[in-house]
């Protein structure tokens, strides 16, 4: 996430208020050199010009040249300030650091009061850090919290990053939608105008060629115009276009409800074979006989029905699901093993 502003990336025109800015080190003024850049170091937030920084810090770390400061600064940490007020620049840096650690969100709390109390405590720490009150104690608290909640912190930051990305994507898509709508409205207006002009030209040219009755031609032209007017009115009554990119904002994250089960008249009772698989045909002598038996093959029955009934009769008390509990079945639960052998025998 870059700290350079999203929008103000056009530095060519210099704000006149900055014209009399002066570098505290070399005392050169912006008035004389329009392209001068002032940078700061988040160590001590002293502002100095780029050429001074090049001169002083190009050979490695050096103390800050501002009188009375003397903090050791490194060149690579210099950057352009975002705000004019350097106090705020510092404050924002601190806030950034704190917010990276204390990144809980409202959903993480049971009640709003807890969340607000948490926010209050965080703000207390931040405030003290900013105003240099008991800095050590505060740093200590920060570190302790970080150590204690490392996992939650990374999770939360991941989540908030995701949220921000979503937000950005949504914004972009909204913009795109608006642009498209505008375009379509413009083209529609143009089309309407073109149509109207064409109709008028048509009437004129028909009149000019002189065939037919002038009145009828004019009337016909009128109806064409009216039709396009009706089209135009239709536009006004047209229903709102469906925005596909639209998302409702500010909703709480809700648990996704599962799909509602369809109505089951048998209340969970199934005709599925739980204890075995019915094959299409078994090579087994008694079965061939049964096929001829009229008691079994009476109207409405067939041999598969018979087989499945036989198998159900056989396994019904076992309570073992062969298909699902393969492990149990093969791991030597006696009954299951027997089932298997029987099955192999059968097939």
């Amino acid at each position, binding site marked *: 996430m870059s700290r350079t502003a999203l929008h103000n990336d056009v530095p060519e025109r210099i704000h006149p208020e900055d014209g009399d800015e002066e570098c505290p080190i070399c005392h050169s003024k912006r008035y004389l050199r329009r392209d001068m850049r002032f940078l700061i170091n988040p160590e001590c937030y002293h502002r100095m010009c780029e050429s001074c920084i090049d001169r002083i810090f190009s050979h490695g770390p050096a103390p800050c040249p501002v009188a009375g400061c003397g903090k050791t600064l490194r060149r690579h940490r210099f950057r352009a300030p975002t*705000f*004019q007020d350097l106090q705020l620049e510092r404050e924002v840096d601190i806030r950034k650091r704190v917010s990276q650690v204390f990144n809980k969100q409202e959903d993480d709390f049971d009640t*709003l009061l807890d969340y*607000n109390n948490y926010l209050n405590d965080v*703000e207390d720490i931040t405030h003290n850090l900013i105003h240099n009150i008991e800095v050590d104690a505060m740093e200590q608290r920060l570190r302790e919290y970080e150590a204690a909640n490392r996992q939650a912190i990374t999770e939360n930051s991941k989540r908030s990053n995701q949220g921000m990305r979503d937000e950005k994507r949504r914004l972009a898509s909204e913009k795109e939608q608006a642009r498209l709508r505008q375009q379509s*409205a413009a083209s529609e207006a143009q089309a309407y105008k073109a149509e109207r002009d064409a109709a008028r030209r048509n009437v004129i040219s028909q009149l000019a060629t002189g065939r037919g009755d002038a009145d009828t031609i004019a009337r016909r032209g009128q109806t064409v115009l009216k039709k396009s007017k009706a089209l135009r009115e239709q536009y006004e009554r047209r229903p709102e276009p469906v925005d596909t990119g639209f998302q409702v904002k500010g909703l709480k994250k809700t648990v996704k409800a599962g799909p509602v089960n369809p109505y089951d008249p048998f209340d969970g009772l199934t005709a599925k074979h739980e204890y075995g698989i019915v094959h299409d045909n078994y090579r087994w002598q008694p079965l061939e006989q049964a096929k001829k038996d009229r008691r079994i093959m009476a109207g409405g029955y067939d041999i598969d029905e018979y087989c499945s009934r036989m198998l159900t009769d056989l396994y019904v008390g076992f309570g073992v699901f062969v298909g699902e509990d393969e492990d149990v079945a093969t791991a030597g639960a006696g009954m299951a093993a027997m089932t298997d052998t029987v099955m192999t025998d059968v097939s």
Partner: protein
Amino acid sequence: MRFFIDNLEVLFPYPRIYPEQYDYMCDLKRTLDMDGGKAVLEMPSGTGKTVTLLSLIVAYIQQNPAKRKLIYCSRTMSEIEKALAELKALMKYRKQELGYEEEFRGLGLTSRKNLCLNSSVKREKSGAIVDARCRALTAGFVKEKKERGEDVDLCIYHENLDPLEPDNLIPNGIWTLDDLLQYGEQHKQCPYFTARRMMPFCNVIIYSYHYLLDPKIAERVSKDFPKDCIVVFDEAHNIDNVCIESLSIDITEDSLRRATRGANNLERRIEEMKSTDAEKLQNEYQKLVEGLREAEEAREEDAFIANPVLPDDLLSEAVPGNIRRAEHFVSFLKRFIEYLKTRMKVLHVISETPVSFLAHLRELTFIERKPLRFCAERLTSLIRTLELTSIEDLHPLQEVATFATLVATYDKGFVLILEPFETDTATVPNPIFHFACLDAAIAIKPVFDRFGSVIITSGTISPLDMYPRMLDFNALVQESYPMTLARKSFLPLIVTRGSDQGTLSSSFQIRNDPSVVRNYGDLLVEFCRLTPDGVVVFFPSYLYMESIVSMWQGMGILDSIWKHKLILVETPDAQETALALEAFRSACNNGRGAVLLSVARGKVSEGIDFDHNYGRTVICIGVPFQYTESRILKARLEFLRETYRIRENDFLSFDAMRHAAQCLGRVLRGKDDYGVMVLADRRFQKKRAQLPKWINQALLDSETNLSVDQAVSQAKHFLKNMAKPFPPEFQYGISTWSLEDLKAYQAKLEEEEIRMLEGEVGPEAVGPNRVVDEFDDIDEEALMALDP
């Protein structure tokens, strides 16, 4: 005059009634009978709209046991006073007719500046300072301090109210603003607070739109009105702009600087209080933990700072923890102000939505949306806790806080526009950050939601269906009334060509062509020659007026006007304009005659009447379109298209025509008045349908495409006819009805209805058409009688 509408007895304070007034009353009653009825009604200017409204609604209130309350909103002070005077006359008439005085109270409310009696406060010129000084003398805690024995000043006028009965601060009756001041002076009681406190006990309240539409004020002044109030917006043709302005905020660098100063002051005060009276801050903190509403308790009339509208659920929610402490909140504000300052440094135009603004804000300064929403409320609470009395310097800070709340509350219908340069050619930046409301429906929505009957009315509110669309409501009754006239007393003309057949138009491509300018000049010279007394001319903009007048000077046109009329010009400066108007009036009165050059969106076009000899001709030079390059307007057009499906061109043309109609309406202020209305632009021909019905109906087809010389001959003929004496008797039975006429009409209507029920006659037999027919025959007869 007493008569019945259905079973409602109406007492009308004049012996004669206009037919359109009767129709208006019928429609009004229909609206009131339906609960939740909203109406848009257009009645020609100068036909006694106010008195019609008042007499019907008062009759309605008095007859119904529910005693609904009437909230009558108008636009300017003078209109409010006029309405109060009408109401007073009406109640006097009712007393005379009924023989006893009714229990009925009516009050007008205006700003402290107009109602203050305290000699030291009254002297201040600016309204904001009067407000602030008044608060410093009347706030609740100031009184507490006094009771504790501290040496603080109190306003004696305000103090005198306390021992009085709270529901009877002022006797029964109607009190105009002057009456209120006089009564206050006699009894040494504050008129402003008398009015404010009596509002719940009044039957009629008359005040400015802002008290109801501006959410910052409405929250405090108009909160406690019951749901069944009848709300009337008079002169409402500009209501959408009022709504929009009430929610828009402009921030400049200067205001940010002062806001910073205000924040620093607050910080200092907090430090002081911490060392002297830490308990108070702690108390506030405790209350904020529980919730904002508890902390606010009752929002009293002395509340320091106004708050923009917030959803109720938000108000009952607790303040976010990170702005709960006073010092945290101040640093929060400062951070926000610094951020805005940084934004101001950008040297190119930015236009963005609140959502992207908030995203950027959060990225840079870690300010979340939620605390931002509470900003204004939190600031109010803080200021009350700190017991600050001099809040003038906090005004910019409050503005920033309001901005913060609004930007975080509304996603849609707003746009943020940063304009670094005042004009395109300027090189020195003077950035303005516009937070512009685009949706007029936002501000007026609470009114529609809360009150049952809302009536929007004006002299020029065509096309009627635009308002329900823009303001997003369903109008149950939409009606435009024609003007019944015994003789055609105004002459609308559309002039499209000069005498040389060259086009007349103020469209951008040809507006500076010498031939166009000369044709306009000829038009003006001709009309100045033939019109007696006053002529009023409206231009689309100051810029165009300046350029055309200087070209006329070069062409010698001004010299020829000078022979006939004195030339006066409206300027953006209010005092200069007032002077010009005064000179104009005296020139019209002494027979010299004058022509006033003014601007269609200026002060003159909105509030000043040119009745009788002050305005015999009005000329609208060019279609008064808005300046379409304005970024705010562009954003609004886009919004209207996207949300309400109103096309750019439709809206622009509607807006231009309502201003043109408003200008035209300036000259005709009654039935005995007459005048010529000239629309001088080719483009008016196509926009004719958008004129109010009463103007359009008088505009004959043969008069819509005239050249200057044709128009002049028409106008000459018209003025000659008008100059003949026209005794009021000629109007009897046609454009004014006596009681008998009215009864005859009612009987006729009844008969029609019976016949219609029997299926003999279609409904179209009744209706406004009757008026036109009658007036054509009788007009001729009457005029013939006059001819020798």
